[in-house]
């Protein structure tokens, strides 16, 4: 057990260092610009047999969707580690990731709706399993943020962590929805030879890297905010004692 604690401690330090490094800040800027150049300069406007300039929204739609999945997974991991080992860092990580996951999920819904209008000529389809399950994910994490906001002390924070662990079930279900149920609009694209999406792999990979680095940068700022809030509380408490 002490060995695991040491590993977790080292992991915490590595995460801190990586998220706050200049590589992340400059990497976000460089890859973000590269992504926009590739998407607007070189990517094809024809996708799934439909030629429309608005198809280019797909590159950032897919990127923010993947980033929201990573963020919500971080909420799950942070919540689980907080419940098992305690430690403020894991709870901060879980909440910061949950907030960013919710932000990215909101962007996914907006951009997805726009892309749906282009490809399916419809803003929203209640019969599509991916759309409906992803909306459920969005509501679940809105609930997580509400529960976290309602917690006032460390014992209460466990409720938010339990929610973060249990609520995560909806994330893999949403991402696997097109394989679990018969899709009506969304089709399985990865590893499906029958679908010709015509998405430029380089532009997509660079966009995903850009959004992931942006996510890491925003995480570092959000965690710093939590740390400062803790410092203020400690300083106020120390003042009251004197």
């Amino acid at each position, binding site marked *: 057990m002490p060995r695991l604690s040491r590993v977790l401690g080292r992991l915490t330090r590595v995460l801190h260092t990586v998220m706050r490094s200049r590589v992340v800040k400059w990497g976000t800027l460089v890859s973000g610009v590269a992504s926009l150049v590739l998407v607007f300069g070189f990517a094809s406007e024809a996708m799934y047999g439909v030629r429309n300039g*608005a198809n280019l*929204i797909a590159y950032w739609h897919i990127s*923010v969707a993947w980033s929201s999945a990573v963020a919500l997974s971080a909420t799950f991991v942070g919540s689980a580690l907080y419940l098992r080992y305690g430690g403020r860092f894991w709870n901060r990580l879980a909440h910061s990731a949950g907030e960013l996951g919710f932000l990215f999920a909101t962007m996914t819904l907006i951009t997805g709706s726009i892309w749906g209008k*282009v490809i399916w000529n419809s803003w929203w389809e209640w019969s599509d399993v991916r759309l409906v399950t992803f909306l459920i994910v969005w509501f679940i994490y809105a609930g997580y943020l509400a529960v976290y906001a309602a917690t006032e002390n460390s014992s209460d924070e466990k409720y938010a962590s339990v929610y973060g662990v249990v609520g995560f079930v909806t994330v893999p279900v949403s991402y696997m929805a097109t394989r679990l149920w018969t899709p009506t609009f969304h089709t399985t694209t990865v590893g499906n030879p029958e679908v010709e999406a015509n998405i430029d792999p380089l532009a997509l990979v660079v966009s995903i890297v850009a959004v992931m680095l942006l996510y890491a940068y*925003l995480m570092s700022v959000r965690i710093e905010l939590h740390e*400062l809030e803790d410092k*203020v509380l400690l300083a*106020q408490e120390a003042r009251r004692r004197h």
Partner: protein
Amino acid sequence: MEPLLLLGYTAIFVLLFAYVVRLQRRLAQLRKQVDDLNG
């Protein structure tokens, strides 16, 4: 540029910008509070 494409990327960047501004404001507020309490 297609209006829908413009709408999509505008939505992304407006949301991101608003979130970053909110974070930076709160950071500045808290840093000042910490300085006041320690100083």
